[in-house]
């Protein structure tokens, strides 16, 4: 056969540009190849214990053992329904809208919450943004800075206008700048579709700076006044204070119906990746709190199902079965609360130990930053120096994952950080 000319697609396939590597997970790949014995990975938001190990939380390990040993629970590997496992849905709805946010009971009774099990937080954001771009909005606002993947998710799912509101200035939260950005944009637009705004429920990623409740009231009042659609990204529930319920304060405020009526709904993207340590199993949920009753919810349900069906048919089962056992067994649930508290305590103690070793502003007030990360304020070239000279890996924006530090490496890392100051 004559050697054929490559078809037009072959030609086109050769001209595909390199997509930029992922800013966070790409570094792990580089880290794995690093030969330095002292190498320290402080990039990804995976919790490690004081021995540098990623371990399964005791509550989750128990749940797994129950699942593994129970012949009954483990005989059917059939597809989950498109919207996910019904038991998981019941238990997560109860956890979120009865326990974390008690006024949600009313919403459940009025059948106003549309719910799908998702591939953790990213999956929830993907389904939400696809739905919103199909029917309601093409403009979204993220904090500056934000989790770098936020923009990817909304862009690939149809959002045309990606904006960032002021969030961080000179090591502090800038609420005035934030509010004035939103006001200015509202004045200058003639878009008939409402814009969306992504809010980090707690433990802002990457800065660790969260508004106080009073500041949140000002912010949410403004968002409500400007008829924006709130999308709450709740990835770290429990890792701030150690109390999963306490950390749901933004959800409670937002769903206070004496204060706010979200005429275009409120979207909650929730993940068990961090607070149950189920990262790779991809367990989470999207709920859409609709403005009116059951009829609206049914329409939303049907569209969310269509989106999921076209993306991946049905969510993976294993992780949700484990999470479901933790949430439905009172003993394991209490144990889980304890596990989350222990993690939060260790994160705080790592910060305290760093403060003993470094004379940094961001460390002097241990309550200023929240969650798994320390936003060091180091610039890209300092981050590069750390990586090249000491094999210490931080995210390019200076985000440091606290749990990667432990008794055996904290001196090494803090010494290297001190050297940068010179």
């Amino acid at each position, binding site marked *: 056969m004559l050697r054929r000319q490559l078809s037009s697609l072959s030609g086109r396939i050769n001209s595909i540009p390199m997509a930029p590597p992922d800013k966070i997970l790409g570094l792990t790949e580089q880290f794995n190849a690093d030969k330095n014995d002292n190498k320290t990975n402080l990039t990804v938001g995976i919790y490690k214990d004081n021995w540098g190990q990623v371990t399964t939380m005791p509550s989750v390990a128990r749940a797994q053992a129950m699942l593994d040993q129970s012949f009954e629970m483990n005989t059917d590997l059939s597809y989950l329904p498109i919207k996910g496992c019904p038991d998981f849905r019941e238990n997560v709805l109860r956890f979120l809208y009865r326990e974390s946010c008690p006024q949600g009971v009313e919403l459940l009774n009025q059948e106003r919450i549309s719910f799908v099990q998702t591939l953790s937080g990213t999956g929830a954001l993907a389904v939400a943004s696809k739905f919103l771009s199909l029917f309601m909005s093409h403009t979204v606002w993220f904090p500056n800075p934000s989790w770098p993947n936020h923009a990817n998710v909304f862009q690939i799912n149809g959002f045309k206008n990606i904006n960032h509101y002021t969030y961080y200035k000179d090591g502090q939260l800038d609420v005035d700048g934030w509010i004035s950005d939103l006001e200015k944009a509202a004045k200058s637009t003639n878009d008939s579709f409402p814009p969306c705004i992504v809010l980090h429920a707690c433990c802002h990623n990457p800065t660790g700076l969260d508004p106080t409740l009073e500041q949140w009231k000002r912010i949410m009042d403004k968002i409500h006044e400007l008829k924006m659609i709130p999308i709450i990204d709740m990835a770290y529930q429990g890792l701030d204070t150690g109390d999963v319920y306490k950390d749901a304060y933004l959800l409670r405020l937002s769903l206070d119906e004496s204060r706010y009526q979200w005429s275009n709904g409120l979207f909650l993207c929730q993940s068990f990746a961090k607070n149950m340590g189920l990262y790779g199993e991809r367990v989470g949920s999207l709920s859409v709190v609709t403005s009116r009753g059951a009829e609206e919810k049914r329409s939303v349900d049907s569209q969310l199902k269509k989106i999921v069906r076209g993306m991946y*048919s049905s969510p993976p089962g294993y992780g949700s079965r484990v999470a479901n056992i933790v949430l439905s067994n009172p003993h394991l649930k209490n144990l889980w609360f304890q596990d989350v508290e222990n993690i939060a305590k260790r994160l705080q103690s790592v910060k305290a130990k760093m403060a003993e070793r470094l004379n940094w502003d961001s460390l002097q007030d241990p309550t200023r930053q929240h969650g798994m990360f320390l936003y060091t304020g180091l610039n890209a070239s300092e981050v590069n120096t750390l990586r090249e000279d000491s094999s210490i890996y931080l995210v390019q924006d200076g985000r440091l994952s606290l749990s990667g530090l432990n008794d055996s490496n904290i001196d090494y890392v803090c010494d290297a950080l001190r050297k940068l100051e010179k």
Partner: protein
Amino acid sequence: MSKTIFNNVALLPPDALFNIKQRMSQDSRKMKVDLGIGAYRDDSGKPWVLPSVREAEKLIQEDPDYNHEYLNITGLTSLTDPAAMVLLGQDSLALKEGRTVSVQSLSGTGALHMAASFYSTTCKDKLVYLSDPTWANHKSIFEGKGLKTATYPYWNAASKSLDLEGYLNAIKTAPQGSIFVLHACAHNPTGLDPNEEQWATILKAIVEKEHMVLFDSAYQGFASGNLNKDAFAVRLGLELLADVTPVIICQSFAKNVGMYGERAGCFHLVLPHQDEFVKMADVKAAIQSQLALITRSELSTPPAYGAKIVAQVLNKPELTKQWHADMVTMSSRIIKMRHLLRDALVSLKTPGNWDHIVDQTGMFSYTGLSAEMVQRLEKEHAVYMASSGRASIAGLNSGNVEHVAKAINEVVNYFGTSKL
């Protein structure tokens, strides 16, 4: 800008097959048969966990290093590497020459969705040709990514056989370089596959027009019990297209490993030979980076558990051997049920020819029963199937096949023979 746009969200009709389940649960009749399900059942009508999977689960549970850390964005290479081998074969030239890019996907649907995303960023103007009929989700997956779809004739309802002439004609008249979605084996919903000779004719016609091929491989090993036999079309396609166009293969482990709900699968892209001045490694790296971006934007990283189980099955020789036996167990039970049903219909002297039930392969049989017959089957006999007449053979077992045959016999006679 204060519009309540939720008002415009339309209510979609519920999934047809989901409704079957609901209606069945409300049916109080003693003998009821579910031929709507798309999952394997054993001879007692129960879901079956493959012994090879049980063993793999045990290995993982006993592994002290098991944890829930994120996989890489492109997935577990201890899954994707052997998965490519299973599909393309030990002697695959494409593998030897390093022309493949493989990433983990959320089973078959996730791989198809990834293909649709990838096409839509690289060649959005191409028409995507789907068989008529095809799996209902195909159309929405491609159209959901903004691609235009068309159909090619496949099923000749009168003769219950392949409409090869129509098929070839569609290949010839399609714009040069279109995308053809082909079912690698066990065509869903008809269960009818081209024979080897017909495959060669079809693929050569595709080569002539330099079309691109996407193989949807959801039933490898499940259809015949033999992985190589069920990969015939894929491997022939790769051979014939090796100098022509890239081939995408969407590989699901839902059916052949029986882990439907764990969403294990792979997306493979096989590049044709390139001119000397093209650096294959660069092209592959760019493609892989785009695929990673798609995954990162939709799920961050693929789910771990199912991938780890399948990786065990594919990497541990004794488990692989057990898995091969498990596929024979499933496929031979299905084939046996096909024969029992056909033979029962023949002995009942049910009007019409029923040989197509045994000629078809995979989970389903396109029975040729009309929508009104299907309705009567449900109403009078508590036998449930999709209104298209697609019956899941996995729902048959030695306890109910006789009942189903009698029920079909009754409805066929009730409506007369003209429709068959």
